[in-house]
């Protein structure tokens, strides 16, 4: 099965990290990805996302399209990035998620659409 690992965190905490901490986090993710590759669990498509403050939200209500500054949900914790992984079942996916060096990881199954090539 395919799962998305959605990484949530406090953006203020993310932004307040110094260069060394950012570098360390980067290296931890590098090791995490190496582990995924070694297991054949890494799927293409995962990305780090820019801060939620840079987001723009488009609301399409059918007859009107509204555009607003900022993320859809204005919460302290925002999605900061995601991985796509291949795991035999939820237990395996959770075991991988626990190794991710981030405080909150939502494990979400991916719906398969074979006609679209996944």
């Amino acid at each position, binding site marked *: *099965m395919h*799962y998305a690992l959605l990484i949530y965190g406090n953006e203020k905490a993310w932004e307040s990290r110094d260069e060394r901490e950012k570098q360390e986090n980067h290296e931890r993710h590098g090791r995490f990805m190496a582990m995924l590759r070694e297991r054949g669990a890494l799927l293409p498509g995962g990305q780090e996302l820019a801060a939620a403050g840079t987001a723009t939200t488009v609301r399409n209500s059918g007859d009107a399209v509204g555009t607003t500054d900022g993320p859809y949900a204005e919460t302290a914790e925002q999605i900061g990035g995601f991985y796509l992984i291949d*795991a*035999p*079942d*939820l*237990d395996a*996916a*959770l075991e991988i998620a626990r190794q991710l060096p981030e405080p909150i990881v939502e*494990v979400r*199954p991916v*719906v*398969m659409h*074979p006609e679209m090539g996944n």
Partner: protein
Amino acid sequence: MAEDSLQDAFVAAARVWPEQGVPERPAAWLWTTAYRRALDRIRREEADARRLPLLIADSAADASRAGAGPGADLGAGRAAGLGAGLDGGLGAGLGGGLGAGLGAGRGAGPGGGSSDDDYSDVADERLRLLFACCHPALRADARAALMLRFVAGLTTAEIARLFLVSEPTMAARLTRAKAKMAVAGIPLRAPSAADLPERLDVVLRVLYLIFTEGYRATAGPDLIRPRLADEAIRLAYLVGELLPGEPRTLALLALMLLQHARRDARVAPDGTLILLPEQDRSRWRHDEIARGAGLLDLLEAAPMPGEYHLQALIAAEHAKPPPTDWPRIAHLYAELERRAPSPMVRLNRSVAVAEAGSPEAALSLLDGLAIRDSHLLPAVRAELLTRLGRHDEATKAFDEALTLVRTNPERQHLLRRRTER
């Protein structure tokens, strides 16, 4: 009426994953098969007590074979004796109070008969089902419902009645949980050895939740619903049988047996709850008390009694004929508080300390304690202050308790105590 089985969740799953056909791990097939076979098995097994010898036999075998590990907690010497007794037939040699209620002639002995292979297959399937239904990725209320539906084999209507919700509500809860199992890929598999302790904790918590739900006196026309407690005990026997040699399972089973043995004495004819000191002891099920106490005897050698074990020891003290050994109960509550601190444990400990003859020490245990929306804390404080002759403070505490008390019999009791001093 919709066919209520695990199958529909997998029909939905099959729509989602059409390209996979029969998946590499044909969980759907396993689920359906496991469910049907488990259900058949359960229906054939009506006598729960029959499971007890099995559970002990396996524990005993573990202990005498390995001499270490969880089974050893049960005491190798005693266990070996039990094992020998079982080899010589069920009726004899069980000893330790366990013989009671396990009389001979309860069918074939453990491992006897022609169904050995079949049995171990079914046992594996049931174990997988059990852990899948108690997966941490499911909500606590869903776990309990799934356990009752797919491991205990109750109907959706029965479970709805037991949890005091409508049948459609319960059906929706089960459907949601089954869909989550299928779509999220919750495996039908026993956990790895490393995960087992934690996962077993969840299973036991679910069982105790089912059990205590039967005793929740806060809602519904019946103060207690013994059927839920029965099911929890039945499932605990099953867990003990499938995962033998787990002291925590035996301790929980002992706790539930000891508490449940008082069911007939807990409710007055007018439906009100009767507290322990006022209960008619002749209405307790003494055979069940003996069974619970027998399990505790097996656990005696455990070096670090866990939470369920301590609670069971307390229940066992209460089940003994008077006079109650309050110093021992106070000591057990102190241990329990060390293991699992909570305001209610502290409050119970304080009562035990007071009954053991130290109301002053009992009162100081209540310092800084807070239990929200409950009259129990001020009520206990009022009683302690009364004993200490501090009547003005006692009156204030009674008044506070009276503003919080919710049931009429308890209100009457407090009013009576407030004036009769």
